[in-house]
């Protein structure tokens, strides 16, 4: 089974559902905003981001583990669900997971750096967007509920329709400025899956919150570099990682974008 074909084949169904919503001006504007502005993002913590920038290729769990035992040990309780989902589809072990993103810091509970892929690159990836987290479609670890999944999946050309269908009811009490967070936040996101290689050359920018950025410079570097007051060993190591990342971003000409959330 090919997940990307399933996504493509759902286009007619999405168009029909979307047409039913388009009497609403807000939904039309939302849909059009997603259509023009979408890309995919992956949230990473410092260690994973530095590794990605150093090695140049984003590795998935199958690349990172050397044997089935190691894979099972790493995934723990999720082993059965993850492998069931991935191995149901052709090239499933090449799948990399991200999220639909039109702005913002993404899923900050899992990684404070939001790696934004260039729109031009995202648009040529083979992509399948799923309305919910893919695990939702694996039942009791027994198999993937394809009938349910095929209604909730879109390719890149129809992802704005999937987003509009998903957020139809949320739009009423949201300002335009809140749309990016509504689409991609800790509690709610549209999962993006690709089998294509994600290279550091595909990265448009890396986003980080102003709070975190300022803490590194104003609380830690200032005190440590100029011997103003002691900082703890973990903070010194963290500054080292932060600097390594900035060196790598400079070498690869990737912008670190500071986002003020206030």
């Amino acid at each position, binding site marked *: 089974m090919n997940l990307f074909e399933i996504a493509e084949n759902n286009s007619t169904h999405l168009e029909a559902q979307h047409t039913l919503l388009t009497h609403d001006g807000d939904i039309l504007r939302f849909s059009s905003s997603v259509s023009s502005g979408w890309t995919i993002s992956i949230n990473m913590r410092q260690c994973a981001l530095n590794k990605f920038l150093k090695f140049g290729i984003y590795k998935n769990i199958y690349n990172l583990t050397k044997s089935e035992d190691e894979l099972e040990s790493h995934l723990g309780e999720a082993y059965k669900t993850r492998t069931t989902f991935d191995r149901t589809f052709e090239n499933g072990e090449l799948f990399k997971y991200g999220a639909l993103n039109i702005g913002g810091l993404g899923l900050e509970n899992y990684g404070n750096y939001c790696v934004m892929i260039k729109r031009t690159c995202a648009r040529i990836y083979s992509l399948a967007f799923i309305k919910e987290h893919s695990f939702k479609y694996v039942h009791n670890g027994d198999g993937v509920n394809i009938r349910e999944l095929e209604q909730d999946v879109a390719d890149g050309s129809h992802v704005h329709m999937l987003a509009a269908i998903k957020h139809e009811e949320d739009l009423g009490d949201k300002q335009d400025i809140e749309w990016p967070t509504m689409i991609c936040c800790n509690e709610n996101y549209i999962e993006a899956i690709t089998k294509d290689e994600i290279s550091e050359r595909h990265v448009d920018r890396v986003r980080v919150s102003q709070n975190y950025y300022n803490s590194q410079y104003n609380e830690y570097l200032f005190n440590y570099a100029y011997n103003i007051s002691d900082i703890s060993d973990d903070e010194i190591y963290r500054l080292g990682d*932060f600097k390594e990342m900035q060196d790598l971003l400079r070498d690869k000409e990737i912008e670190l974008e500071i986002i003020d959330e206030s």
Partner: protein
Amino acid sequence: MKANLKIIAIASQDGWAFVQEDTRIVLLKPPYNYLDMVHVTRATVQKAIDIHGFEKCDVNKEFNNIGEIIQYIKRDYVQFKKTQGIDMPTPEELKGLLNYANDDVLISYLNKARNELIPLGKIIAAKSIASDLKELDRIVENPEICRLIEEILELCKSEMRNFEETKAEWTHKYPNISGKYDMASIICLQRATSQRGQLLRIVG
């Protein structure tokens, strides 16, 4: 009463952890400020383990408060770095971060140097900040930064001159005190006393 706190999932290489406090779950992440502590659901923790590289924590240890947990996570992170054979960077190495700092950061450094360090007598640190920032190529694009740097360097020069004069005066007049105490502290105290003005009421 002892709080029922335990770590339920951890990412040691980054110092992140999910902590259970009775029925609530809190995410702890650097820099561990109060505002960063978000409450999450069990589903979030599961997803963190399933997809985002967290490990289920089998540390059978209960903590008395969040502070103890943060100390534990920090030690765990440092231990991870040491196990990897990574040395701690030196202050000089980390000064390289100034090359990437945005203008707001540079201005805040200079404001702290002028408004906090110089009044405290930390002239060498203030001068060092201004001199380091003066070395950055891109500061020429920001006249405010250039102006602040020159202002601080001038202030430092004048403070150093005052320092030397005061030091000479104290050494001459009060050799015992100036031999025993740090001159910068004496000057700082002298300045604070002078700024406070009259301490005792003059009774006529």
